[in-house]
């Protein structure tokens, strides 16, 4: 059974968690591509990398050890410290 709490705020904004603010453009940004390690995902991400480089972004590639579990904390830290934006692919 889920927990119900009373909102502590002035209730001026929506209660849903919001996504973090996006940059206006990817030009000059470090974009991380996280491969979840399912087959064929690398081909997909190679093309995404090409297109992003074409936009002027700097692309870093990362790979999860297995698609069956969330990424290890160390990998998340590595990604978080180096990247400004992340795209994770390709789940099927």
């Amino acid at each position, binding site marked *: 059974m*889920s*927990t119900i*709490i*009373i909102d*502590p705020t*002035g209730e*001026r904004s929506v*209660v849903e*968690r919001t996504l973090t603010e996006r940059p206006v453009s990817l030009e000059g940004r470090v974009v991380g591509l996280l491969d979840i390690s399912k087959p064929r995902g690398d081909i997909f991400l190679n093309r995404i990398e090409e297109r992003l480089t074409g936009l002027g972004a700097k692309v870093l590639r990362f790979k999860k050890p297995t698609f069956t579990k969330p990424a290890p904390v160390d990998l998340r830290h590595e990604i978080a410290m180096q990247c400004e934006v992340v795209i994770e692919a390709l789940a099927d």
Partner: protein
Amino acid sequence: MSVTTTATPPAPTVAPPLPDGLVAVVKRECATCVLVTPVLAQLASAPSVTLSVFTQDDPDFPDGISSMHDDDLALSWHHDIETVPTLLRVEGGREVGRIVGWSRPEWEAFTGVADLGPGLPEWRPGCGSLSVDPNLADDLRVRFTGSTLRGRRVELASLEDEWEAMFDRGWTDGLPVVPPTEARVLRMLEGTTRHPQDVVAIVPPDLVAVTVEKVAVNAVMAGCKPEYLPVVLAAVEAACNDEFNIHGVLATTMPVGPLIIVNGPIRRAIGMNSGINVLGQGNRANSTIGRALQLVIRNVGGGRPNEVDRATHGNPGKVGWCVPEDEEGSPWTPLSVARGFPAGMSTVTLFPAEGPRCVVDQLARDAGQLATSFAAALRTVHHPKLPLGFDAVLVVGPEHARVFADAGWNREQLVAELDARLQLPGSEIIRGAGGMAEGIPERLRDATLPKFRPGGLLVVHAGGGAGLFSTVIGGWANGAIGSQPVTKEITS
């Protein structure tokens, strides 16, 4: 499908009506209720009596007597049944009398039926009613009074850890907060007699009206006990007005945050610490009351670091700072009395405070010498060459206070003696003097200016019994655009 749902509050429950005549409330898990079963049978068949029986637990109890099942305990709760068996007399839907437990003479007099329970002992005490069972108390409170809460309900997602959920929504000060469930908020509201929907203050910077209920939600998060709530409410009132100017205190680049100084009987009642480490950690009331105020500013008022809060450095007290004055060991009147409030009244005094600074003087035996040490330290509040613009709090430790007490100095004399030693010659404090650019304009070189405006130095007695130390706490800008200390009564 939304990812966080706002849950609908439960429908209000109404007190179930009582049937006229005699009403018995019983439960099987009570030896006395079992004992009086034959008495209930006698009453049920007595021609002069209309008897209704309500059972709290087993619907088949009492055996052989028809009864109604108060399965959600609504009847017991709303009619304040604390003991079983309870026997009520009801006329026109209203209770006109009640007795509890078993006593033959009492039951015979109450019911008007003679020879009740032959063979039973003369009397037997009752048992606790299920509607006041401590194990059920929280659930019952939510069930029957939860609807009085008006705050938006937030249902956490199934994989959300309830503590992480508070961080993820930006509702904390960086430390964990207690998730404010309905049960916890209702329990917190028991700490005040004020109505939950009373508006306490309008909170800057967003100028949002905050109710007793919303303060209670944040008090739960801060880790307060219900008995601390009156202090928190008084602090919110004292902070959110033009005089104290919490908006200015929040938005400044200076390091200040609200310091709450507590006077009066409430300090002992809620177990505050005015002795060893009074300005530090370790005491729940000291640590959580100030935090509750800051969470209200943050969550209700919208005042957060990097947004409205632009402090260059801030200070650790901004997590929350609340200290009681040590009145019992003090040679002086309490701060509250000095500020015009009656002795014996519990009060909060709000002061816009930077971090504390220690004043060491382990050699002065003479009050005048000690005052001179204090003055030297006080002169440097924010800058030795800046007079009048800032207030300060001087926390005198007990060993230092004794030096002044031995000289017969009362509070007023101490302040006057400090003031006399803080008359700053213009030539020393004009810009450029002493090789420091800061200071007052050159045209004031022949003036003498006091370090503090009249009433700008507040003296508080607190601290451990050992240690020839006192503490100086600088304030923020005073005057029309700044902040004045504010004192308010704490009411229940």
